[in-house]
């Protein structure tokens, strides 16, 4: 067990100014009673007012999932649904675990001060660096959400967090390799995909930073903050009456244990969104006829819109989506294929749900609008450039 180390309030504030503000505020708001240190995981902190609006989703999902349960039925559609559903979850869950672990270790091992030293002083430069961070720290879209959740808690600027969230699953060597493989090593496609993904992420990151303050966009900071303060591994105990606090994070083993606890919390907070998103994607894959999309392929803008819609519905991993996009070669214009490969890693059904664990609804709407508008504009622009892909 960790050993308690006495801290003065001044020392604690100096070292933990970010979350202490919240903790002190909470403690002072209820001076008459010392609340027990409870652990609540994930969205427990959302409270009934903010959380009520989405609390019905798990209940609704459980009811629908029971309706579609194959349960030995001879329906090949239900069987396909089950296979695709389990496949998406199984493919994503290792990355979700790893993403949560990375987030947990960041939480336990990287202080806000150290994080600040990593970041450039200029805001736009931070956004640019964050958007390219996937090159050295490749993540898929399932893993990136819990990581970003923790990075925001550690003080990564909101605009930079958005840039990493959007670019990380595209601008990374694994996606570059899979895209190259899918398009028979046509490096123009690879460079275009990564370059456009990077550009869109930087622009949207900067725009989101202008449109929203962190508090207006990031969901209930106390979620992350209280995890910092109160989760089992961390043991930052605030003693409001005594005016002092202490931390017991003094050993590597303790920190690792804390990292696992944080990671588990993150997984519990985001994991159910993954499952629900995977189920919706499986429904789409089971009941939507891909060939029906082809009849509208002749209209350039419409083909782009259709492929973007397909990317949102299919919820494919960014490491695999290039193969599906490539299967539309000769059937859909390259601009539509590119739109498919840019949209999916930034915005699909499961991400829409997973973003709810980090951002407020208004921010999600703005983010989705910017992503869709940005990808559409770029894809239509690409379509106008003649001869590029001939």
């Amino acid at each position, binding site marked *: 067990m960790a050993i308690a180390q006495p801290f003065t309030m001044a020392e604690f504030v100096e070292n933990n100014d970010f979350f202490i503000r919240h903790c002190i505020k909470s403690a002072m708001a209820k001076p008459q009673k010392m609340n027990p240190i409870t652990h609540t995981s994930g969205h427990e902190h959302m409270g009934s007012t903010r959380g009520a609006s989405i609390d019905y989703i798990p209940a609704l999902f*459980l009811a629908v999932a029971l309706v579609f349960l194959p349960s030995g039925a001879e329906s090949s559609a239900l069987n396909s649904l089950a296979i695709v559903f389990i496949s998406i979850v199984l493919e994503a869950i290792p990355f979700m675990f790893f993403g949560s672990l990375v987030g947990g270790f960041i939480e336990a091992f990287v202080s806000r001060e150290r994080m600040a030293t990593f970041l450039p002083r200029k805001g736009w430069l931070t956004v640019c660096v964050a958007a390219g961070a996937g090159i050295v720290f490749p993540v898929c879209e399932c893993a990136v959400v819990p990581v970003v959740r923790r990075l925001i808690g550690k003080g990564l600027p909101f605009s930079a967090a958005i840039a990493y969230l959007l670019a990380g699953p595209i601008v990374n060597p694994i996606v570059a390799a899979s895209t190259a493989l899918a398009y028979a090593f046509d490096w123009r496609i690879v460079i275009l995909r990564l370059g456009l993904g990077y550009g869109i992420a930087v622009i949207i990151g900067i725009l989101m930073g202008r449109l929203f303050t962190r508090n207006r966009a990031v969901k209930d900071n106390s979620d992350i903050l209280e995890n910092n303060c109160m989760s089992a591994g961390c043991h930052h105990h605030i003693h409001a009456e005594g005016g002092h606090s202490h931390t017991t994070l003094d050993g590597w083993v303790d920190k690792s244990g804390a990292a696992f606890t944080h990671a588990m919390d993150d997984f519990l907070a985001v994991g159910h969104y993954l499952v629900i998103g995977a189920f919706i994607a499986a429904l789409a894959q089971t009941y939507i006829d891909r060939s029906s999309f082809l009849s509208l392929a002749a209209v350039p803008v419409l083909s782009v819109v259709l492929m973007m819609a397909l990317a949102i519905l299919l919820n494919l991993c960014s490491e695999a989506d290039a193969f599906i996009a490539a299967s539309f070669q000769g059937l859909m214009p390259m601009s539509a294929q590119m739109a498919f490969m840019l949209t999916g890693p930034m915005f699909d059904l499961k991400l829409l749900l997973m973003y709810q664990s980090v951002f407020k609804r208004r921010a999600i709407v703005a983010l989705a609008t910017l992503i869709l508008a940005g990808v559409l504009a770029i894809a239509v622009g690409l379509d106008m450039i003649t001869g590029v892909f001939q």
Partner: protein
Amino acid sequence: MKSPVEHLKRLLHPAVFAIWTGFLVYLLASQQYVAFLRPEFGLLLAVAHFVAMGFMIAAIVRPKTTEMRVPTILRALVLLVPVLYSVAMPDAMLGNQAFKKRFIGNNSGAVSRQEQSTLFSQEAENKSNPASPQGENGGTQQETPLELTILDIFRNPNLFKGQRVIVTGMIVHDEQFKPYFGGRDAAVYRFLINCCAADALPLAIALDSDQAEPFANDQWVQVDGIFELRQFSGKAVPMFVKPRIKAIEAPSVPYLF
């Protein structure tokens, strides 16, 4: 004496991770995961099961939960739905229903790991292939047929043009696919997986014969025939001519990777 509700509060999250750990161990030990994922994902699942175990331990040793509301319980139950589906699933194999929803023609991108630019294109059809012993005409077939996968043929169709080959796959009959099957309504097909069954792409070779009639959709068969690229509406359609078809047992790994 603790009430059942208190037990539930205490054990819910450890139980969720314990079930996931057990599920992953089962999938790995039984090799069932290849019904959903590429075999290479086994390593990831193996590591993931250790992480799940770590989360389980973290959930056990953390301070006792004093507050757990209904939404928390529901969210934990949501995490168990994939395991429930795995138990309830009658058959861990995609079939003709998935084929019909996903098939958009034998397009090159499906197997673009190599030779993509020439696959099934008019240009490819017109090229003579020095590697092919039969050249353009294809006529004579060797006595011993080549045993290949459909993917082998799709990767390099010109190499096998006019040759007698044996492939394994499932039967699909559907009138709507006649334009893709060179005017025929039956084909032998398999799914190609790049990561997981969600991205499975059907690869089909049409059967130029009524011999497929007696076989039901999704029946596993071995087809022994002459592979050709037949021109149909300006496109080269992969097709087996004079196929001999026999029913076989489903292979242990139904997909191509």
